[in-house]
């Protein structure tokens, strides 16, 4: 009887702990979703992060052919464009010599010499009917869109993998196919596991010292990618090595029997058959970079623009979510960015699950 109650108590505790862990997951997901979902729309996904205020010159105006609505911006009431008719002269806008077509969401700050602060829609319409010829508008295109951040995240993923993947693959091949037991192999194993235990912030410090200042690359996409390529080494190496080891010995023997050399066997037999395991390593790396912030904030910087070259600063989504939370305390915006990163991570995790499920090598286990 006593044993039975003891069983019940322990089972209760174990169940409680499991439920607790899963409810923490739902709590954090729910919090991020509720706080951030309101901000997510097309402008959020496709717009620039930094607000931009410019003067736009229009030619051959005969009324603007736009609809507007009042909006509060920067604590003042302005007019926001809610729709643009096709053929409207605002689509031919020029700013600083470059084409700058106005679009839905842009805020009119000034029409010729008339300030739009406090202007009603009716006042705008009567003003609009008098506009003709060449006019100049002052327009603010609001920020808080994450498009450049997404592009930067993808570029840094590509660049880091470009550096880390070949090294990791060669290393994995050496470890699985050539290396002999010994002190050097022990050291490689130790440093690989040590590398996976080093906190991101230490990688950040190293990247800053080695790439940003010593190699004089500055806060740039390249510094960030070089730093991350080191961060990725342990995951990529161990995943690829495992994948190479799982290719059955008979495949190698068959290849050798056909007269292939060791290298031909590696590139034509082993690597193609280890591909799914290598892809899993790549996907895990993508997840790691999407989540990374400490190593990037000290190396790639926090500029929320798409850089022209890899030598310019480029903030990723997660880095910007940090600066937003830290500097402005805007939880909603940080959560909206969080939703996008979490969706990316769910996609990556599911892809890993699917690949593992259909991995043809698993039947040789």
């Amino acid at each position: 009887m006593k044993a039975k109650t003891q069983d019940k108590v322990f089972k209760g505790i174990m169940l409680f702990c499991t439920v607790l862990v899963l409810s923490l997951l739902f709590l954090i997901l729910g919090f991020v979703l509720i706080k951030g979902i309101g901000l997510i729309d097309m402008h959020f996904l496709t717009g620039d992060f930094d607000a931009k205020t410019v003067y736009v010159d229009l030619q051959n105006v005969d009324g603007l052919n736009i609809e507007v609505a009042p909006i509060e911006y920067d604590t003042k009431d302005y007019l926001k464009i809610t729709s643009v008719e096709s053929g409207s002269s605002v689509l031919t806008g020029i700013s600083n010599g470059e084409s700058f077509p106005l679009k839905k969401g842009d805020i009119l700050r000034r029409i010729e010499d008339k300030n739009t602060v406090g202007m009603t829609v009716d006042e705008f319409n009567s003003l609009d009917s008098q506009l003709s010829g060449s006019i100049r508008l002052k327009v603010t295109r609001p920020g808080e869109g994450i498009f450049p951040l997404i592009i930067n995240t993808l570029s840094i993923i590509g660049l880091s993998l470009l550096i880390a993947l070949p090294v990791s693959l060669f290393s994995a091949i050496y470890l699985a196919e050539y290396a002999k037991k010994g002190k050097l192999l022990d050291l490689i194993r130790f440093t690989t596991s040590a590398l996976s235990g080093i906190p991101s912030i230490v990688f950040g410090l190293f990247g800053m010292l080695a790439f940003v200042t010593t190699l004089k690359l500055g806060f740039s996409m390249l510094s960030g990618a070089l730093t991350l390529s080191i961060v990725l080494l342990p995951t990529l190496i161990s995943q690829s090595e495992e994948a190479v080891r799982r290719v059955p010995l008979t495949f190698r023997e068959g290849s050798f029997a056909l007269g292939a050399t060791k290298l031909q066997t590696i590139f034509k037999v082993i690597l193609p058959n280890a591909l799914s395991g290598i892809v899993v390593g790549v996907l895990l790396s993508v997840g790691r970079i999407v989540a990374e912030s400490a190593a990037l904030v000290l190396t790639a910087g926090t500029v929320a623009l798409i850089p022209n070259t890899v030598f310019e600063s480029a903030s990723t989504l997660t880095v910007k979510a940090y600066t937003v939370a830290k500097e402005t305390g805007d939880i909603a915006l940080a959560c909206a960015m969080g939703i996008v990163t979490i969706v990316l991570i769910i996609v990556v995790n599911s892809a890993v699950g699917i690949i593992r499920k259909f991995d043809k090598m698993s039947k040789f286990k």
Partner: protein
Amino acid sequence: MLAYFCNFKDLNMRKTKKYEPLVELIFRISSVMTIVAVGFIVLFIISKGVQPFLSSNKEGTYSFVKFISGLEWRPNDDINKAQYGILYMIVGSLFATGGAIILGVPISIFAAGYLSELANEKVKKIAKAGIMLLAGIPSVIYGVFGLGFIVPKIKEISPMPQGQSLLAVIIVLTMMILPTMIVIAENAIASVPSAYRNASYALGASKVYTTIHVIIPAARRGILVGVILGVGRAIGEAMAVVLIAGNVSGGIPTSLFEPIRPLTANVVLEMSYATGLHSEMLFATGSILMLFIIGINLVLSRIIKRMGKY
């Protein structure tokens, strides 16, 4: 005839011989990249981190004793006014990590035990996907969650004017280290030989009793590996804790509601604009952090080596 085959084989060999050793050399060089990386990381950070304590340093010299035992961090361009003490940060980091381990270890062991031994396949699959996701959530998001949810909740019950505190850091770190510890504990539990279970059942023990008294103790080394990895993650976590720790400029915390300034937060907060001696002191902070990590790794590799013997 025989000569023909030999020649053919030779020809084939010669065709590949030219580049094969070269490619193998590339493989070999790639394989030592992790050694090179770890070597450079340790060398770069520590060599920069010891600069402020050398009398020959051109940015000025600061006493190592004052650095390691100081209770105040007040950077100043005037070296005589600057205070670079990190003892209170070390204590804060250790309190936060210790707290997270005390909370997290029992939860993760029980959850792993349940998932591995008692749960049915369906529950197990869903729970595992959930834990994978929990592990993949960026640390910044944990920080934002802490700042937007946990900090306001703590503020309601705290005697202090702000919610940023040791307690907030402990709660968020616990959440962050749970997935790692559960996954590793679960693997350790699953790899306990079934003979243990069968022997226990044969003696009349129930499934729950077996799990608690036989399986979990038998998996203790594997569980310990998970705990140590958890310690490493907790002490090295930067972006989540910097948002919720309060980051005070001095003082050892005496209660859970007091703010702290973990070592990692110190680096993140000031590294982007620090110059001269101040920047070097941040690298010194990073070096101390790295010494902790190196220590953790040495313990870890010793345990794993010993595990191999069984």
